[in-house]
């Protein structure tokens, strides 16, 4: 067991837990976008920043990737943390102004105005969809491509992937892209969650290990009737 202080409260947690898990367990809320139970921590969105250490040596770290240490002093809602978090949200909002998830988070943090140019990227490169595809669906159909400002998520060569089972998991977890659905261009489709609906579950029979995130599946219910 490791003893640390979160917001002044002395707690003991098991070795190997992250600050985020410990804080959430104790009831201190930390907002996240790229974190999901069951997926490896990635630390991409930086929304979960917390302040550790004291005085001049205090620093901001992403709590989802930081394992707890003996005697660590964590502040999850100091003014520095809130300021940084607000800034991060403003930038995320500028890249995805149409995302409901980010809009809600921004409004909860008191952001009423946008200072930055809106980009309409519909992607914050948080890698949630990539990790769901790889770790939960065992498919590895989508991944990161290119580098720097050209970095994007999609299938290799922008064609429909052979290993994609159209489970729709990537769309289900995405916090940014309400508009990612590309099934009207089947050649470019990266997941095709809607293909599960109309025509009902067309491709489902082809795969023995088909996993569908929709439970109950609307299309299957319609078929039964």
């Amino acid at each position, binding site marked *: 067991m490791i003893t640390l202080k979160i917001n002044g409260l002395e707690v003991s947690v098991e070795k190997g837990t992250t600050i985020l898990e410990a804080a959430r367990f104790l009831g201190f809320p930390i907002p996240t976008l790229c974190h999901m139970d069951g997926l490896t921590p990635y630390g991409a969105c930086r929304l979960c920043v917390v302040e550790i250490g004291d005085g001049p040596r205090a620093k901001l770290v992403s709590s989802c990737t930081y394992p707890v240490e003996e005697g660590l002093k964590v502040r999850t809602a100091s003014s520095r943390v809130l300021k940084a978090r607000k800034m991060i949200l403003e930038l995320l909002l500028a890249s995805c102004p149409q995302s409901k998830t980010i809009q809600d988070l921004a409004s909860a943090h008191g952001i009423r105005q946008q200072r930055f140019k809106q980009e309409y990227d519909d992607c914050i490169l948080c890698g949630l969809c990539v990790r769901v595809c790889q770790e939960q669906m065992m498919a*590895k159909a*989508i*991944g*990161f*491509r*290119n*580098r720097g400002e050209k970095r994007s998520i999609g299938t*290799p*060569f922008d064609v429909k*992937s052979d290993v994609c089972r159209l489970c729709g998991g990537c769309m289900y977890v995405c916090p940014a892209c309400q508009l990612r659905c590309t099934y009207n261009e089947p050649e470019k489709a990266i997941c095709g969650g809607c293909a599960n609906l109309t025509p009902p579950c067309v491709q489902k029979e082809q795969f023995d290990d088909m996993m569908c995130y929709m439970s109950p599946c609307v299309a299957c219910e319609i078929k039964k009737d």
Partner: protein
Amino acid sequence: MQRGAAVAKKVNIRKQDKVNSKDILKILEKHSDDRGGLIAILEDIQTKYGYLPEKALRIVGEKTNRSLVDIYSVATFYRFFSLKPKGEHLVCACLGTACHVRGAPRVVSELEQQLGIKAGQTTADNKFTLETVNCLGACALGPVVVIDGHYFSKVKRSKVKQLLDKAQEGFDKLDIGKDERIFPIDVSCPHCSRSFRDEIVVIDGYPSLKVNVAVDGKKGELRLSSLYGSFNISTEFEIPEGTIASFICPHCGSEIKSTSDCSDCGAPMIPMLVSGGGTVQICSRRGCKNHMLDLV
């Protein structure tokens, strides 16, 4: 602007070869012992085809149990790799800080104008590909332009056209007599040590080297230029490009053959003794210019 600060090995860019799964397997076999050597594999494929063909990447994924996503993300991450076919000549202009302040942007814009393309593109006739790099490490010589592996230093706007014309002609055409990398050598048979020197026939202004060759059952004389670096020869009969000839000593009649194979094409190498000590080896395949000189 002399002939390059360093003469690097010419980047062998072939025209869009058809992807042969055998060739890819050969490359994969070479790297089978090092785990995780994906970049090395991709480098070899790029050297062979000049770019990374989609089919090749799919084969690599299948054979090495890597998912295509991982290979594709590596291939698109590094700038060295290209997924589009490149032109016959690769023009690389340095835009690093030192070259930049010495006027590299002007050189690049001149290159763009002369070729009619933007940086990163290939001309419509597939002759030239123009690329920019962020530093070549030769900052004192800036602005640096590399064409087909040949480095050109202190390039000015006015020199660009000349450079491109020269590239089209090919840098491998050597100026015999002026180039200091070319010098005459006298060679002899490794079995009987008698010289191949033949005063009767003159090639490149020097006495030629006479050996007997056999190609597909046909036998005849072959005369090589005695200049190291010159590939001029004269033969009694036509030897088609790509065929492998066996070399026979005109004095003792024994076949000259090395145990080692050509590193470029795999044909046997032909060893000959150099007077003054050392050996020179040439590739036995017609058209292959691979050779090695070991002086003692």
